[in-house]
């Protein structure tokens, strides 16, 4: 039998100044199952809470109504008061007679008093049906998964590992390093990118708490915060990395040469390869689509048609440790993690849609990232900036900003943020490489928001003599050995036509290929460009709507290196905070299935935004729904969708809401 106690708060004069409290108390006493109705000047104050506590004990109450402010304000406070009186905290219901009554109906005290009585009546009808609820404790696997081995992922993994927790870093390329490894120098300090990155890469590979999985991809994710199960596909490297000592004989002697992805097609690599000299791990993989022996094997397997490819196997013959493993196949492993950090980064925009800039047809129109490779001492030209067409040194260079950024027509309306600065950097460095070079930068706006950025931009003008021209070029075409850049100087209001030796397109950032698929696997949101969506752009920048999954770096939006590093550290701090607890407490206000009623239509499975409803088979062989207490957030979508009314939401059951409505007409 429910014994309800009603506590009406004056809130000073906030409520009592409008609502006639004695009248409310009198009415409350007559409501069903109410055994006591008392008032308080300030219920939330310590004396107020104490009097609630005493009344609970004295009157042997087992349901409590606090008629006061909004539950959004003090529900937690009063739940604690119940708990301190030895009552289950979920046996409380608040009647909001301040925000939704006295404060909005101060013009008519009688009406406000009547409304307050009705609000309490509804709360009483509901509270009677409250059940004691208990939060559940779930264990945590104190091991984090970091997806992506660029600077963001590296920073995240190092920080988590240094906090003392185990980390697995999964990278789909043969080496970690990401985009930053491709850069020559960084703005605005002109630090050598490799010099600051590679020590971190080595730290990571040697950290006792970090397990590095390169050439691997995340395939499937199930579970919930503290307890994720992740399927990781290890692609076939065909090299046994336990045996390999990274001596390099194989990749020096492999006869098959293919364009290097790392050098963006400007240089060559072999079929057995490490992507770049400082790769981590410094051990090769065999690119099966180009390997001669693999081609031979396919030729044998497909009936020996056509010309016989060479049987090669040179790497195998030369390897001093017999590390070549032709029988190695791709493998799927399932690992357990407590949290996941997504740091999949970006790729540069493919400008083949820009017909007016030659759609990749002109050898001497290159991208900013390609120029980085040309300027890099370890790049395909050993740091000599030369034209791809004739190998000559360019003397006039035009940069075009915002290619694939701030362009509505190409579906890329956002600003890529780093291009203004990296074009300035490249122009300054070209001048350092060769003082005779003259650079022109076509820009829409120069966005130099950042520490020392504006100064750096001014340095490009003052020291490197860069000529900035405001306007997006309308056309680039070849004229003999020169490229002609046609545009309009919108500040001067006149057309410009500049013949140059080299054109550099500052292509914007877009999420790495496959980001959308990964997001779907993880059940986190992504926007129309496939950037991951954070839980709150201002206040929860590295969290997602799926608890336990974090995002960091350029997979969320265009970011520069320091921001990526900061976000990586931020995500790591979140992970460490979570791992510092031994168990997680889950909210009990969630959906539960009545097995006897469920007909197995599984509409709830499809409707749940959190993948919290799954199905199971009962002993008598019926298919029924089952909710996962740790994943359920208690939205109640499944409940409204359930036709046989087999799912219900604790704390907001169908019956409770119907009773609340009915309470109005009591």
């Amino acid at each position, binding site marked *: 039998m429910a014994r309800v106690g009603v506590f009406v708060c004056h809130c000073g004069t906030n409520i009592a100044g409008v609502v006639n409290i004695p009248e409310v108390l009198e009415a409350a006493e007559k409501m069903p199952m109410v055994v006591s109705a008392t008032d308080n000047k300030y219920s939330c104050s310590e004396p107020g809470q104490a009097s609630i506590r005493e009344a609970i004990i004295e009157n042997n109450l087992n349901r409590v109504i606090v008629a006061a402010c*909004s*539950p*959004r*304000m003090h529900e937690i406070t009063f739940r604690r008061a119940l708990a301190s009186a030895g009552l289950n905290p979920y046996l409380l219901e608040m009647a*909001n007679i*301040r*925000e*939704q*009554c006295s*404060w*909005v*109906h*101060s*013009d*008519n005290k009688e*009406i*406000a008093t*009547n*409304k307050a009585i*009705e*609000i309490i009546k*509804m709360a009483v009808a509901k509270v009677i049906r409250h059940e004691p609820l208990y939060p559940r404790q779930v264990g945590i696997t104190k091991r984090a998964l970091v997806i992506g081995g660029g600077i963001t992922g590296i920073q995240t993994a190092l920080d988590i590992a240094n906090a003392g927790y185990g980390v697995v870093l999964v990278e789909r390329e043969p080496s970690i390093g990401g985009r930053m490894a491709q850069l020559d120098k960084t703005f605005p300090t002109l630090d050598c990118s490799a010099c600051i990155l590679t020590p971190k890469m080595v730290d990571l590979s040697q950290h006792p708490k970090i397990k590095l999985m390169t050439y691997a991809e995340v395939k499937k994710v199930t579970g919930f915060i503290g307890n994720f199960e992740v399927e990781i596909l290890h692609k076939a490297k065909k090299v046994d990395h336990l045996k390999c000592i990274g001596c390099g004989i194989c990749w020096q002697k492999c006869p098959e040469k293919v364009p290097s992805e790392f050098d963006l097609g400007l240089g060559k690599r072999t079929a057995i390869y490490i992507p770049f000299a400082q790769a981590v791990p410094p051990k090769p993989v065999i690119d099966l689509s180009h390997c001669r022996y693999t081609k031979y094997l396919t030729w044998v397997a497909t009936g020996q048609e056509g010309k016989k490819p060479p049987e090669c196997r040179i790497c195998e013959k030369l390897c001093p440790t017999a590390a070549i493993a032709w029988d190695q196949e791709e493998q799927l492993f399932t690992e357990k993690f407590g949290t996941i950090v997504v740091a999949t980064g970006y790729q540069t925009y493919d400008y083949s849609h820009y017909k007016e800039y030659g759609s990749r047809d002109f050898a001497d129109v290159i991208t900013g990232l390609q120029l980085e490779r040309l300027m890099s001492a370890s790049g395909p030209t050993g740091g000599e900036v030369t034209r791809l067409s004739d190998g000559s040194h360019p003397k006039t260079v035009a940069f075009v900003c915002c290619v694939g950024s701030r362009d509505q027509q190409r579906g890329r309306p956002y600003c890529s943020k780093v291009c203004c600065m990296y074009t300035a950097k490249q122009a300054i460095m070209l001048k350092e490489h060769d003082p005779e070079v003259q650079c022109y930068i076509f820009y829409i706006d120069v966005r130099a928001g950042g520490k020392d950025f504006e100064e750096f931009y001014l340095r490009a003008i003052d020291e490197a003599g860069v000529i900035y021209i405001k306007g997006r070029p309308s056309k680039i075409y070849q004229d003999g050995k020169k490229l002609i850049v046609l545009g309009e100087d919108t500040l001067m209001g006149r057309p410009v036509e500049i013949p140059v030796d080299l054109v550099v397109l500052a292509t914007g950032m877009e999420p790495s290929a496959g980001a959308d698929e990964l997001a779907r696997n993880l059940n986190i*949101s992504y926007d129309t460009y496939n950037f991951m969506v954070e839980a709150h752009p201002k206040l929860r920048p590295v969290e997602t*709507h799926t608890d336990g999954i974090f995002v960091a770096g350029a997979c969320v939006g265009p970011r520069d290196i320091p921001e990526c590093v900061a976000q990586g550290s931020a995500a790591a701090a979140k992970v460490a905070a979570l791992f510092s607890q031994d168990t997680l407490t889950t909210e009990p*206000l969630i959906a539960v299935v009545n097995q006897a009623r469920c007909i197995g239509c599984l509409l709830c499975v499809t*409707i749940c*935004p*959190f993948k919290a409803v799954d199905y199971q088979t009962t002993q008598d062989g019926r298919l029924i729904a089952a909710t996962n207490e740790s994943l359920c*957030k*208690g*939205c*109640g*979508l499944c*409940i*409204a*969708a359930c036709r046989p009314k087999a799912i219900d*939401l604790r704390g*907001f059951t*169908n019956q409770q*809401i*119907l009773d*609340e*409505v*009915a309470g*109005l*007409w009591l």
Partner: protein
Amino acid sequence: MAVSHEPRIVGFLCNWCSYAGADLAGTSRITYPANIRIIRVPCSGRVDPLFVVKSFQLGADGVLIAGCHPGDCHYTEGNYHTRRRFALLRPFLDYLGIDQERFRLEWVSASEGKKFSEVVADFTETLKRIGPREI
């Protein structure tokens, strides 16, 4: 002479936006007609069509569902389901002899205290105009 009629509105408000919006109307001391009784639900998508029909059966003059603006649902997509359910349920009210105008769906964010008060005022006005239900 027509007796002045005070309609009763049952309002189902999602906890994260609309209920907070109604709270804000209070915090900002914006007065509005006292004809609404608010029921807090976690999400507008929690509202079962049965709740609406039951409210009418018991004698409500109007039913309001209020949720976060499309795209802002705390549970990402709850209000999209609400919107579809609303579109299906509303014409069905004709069969129950209930004027479709008595059933409303509104998007009220946590910062729209003013809007919430306007919604209630306007809905009350409409219900007064339609007059009492004939049961």
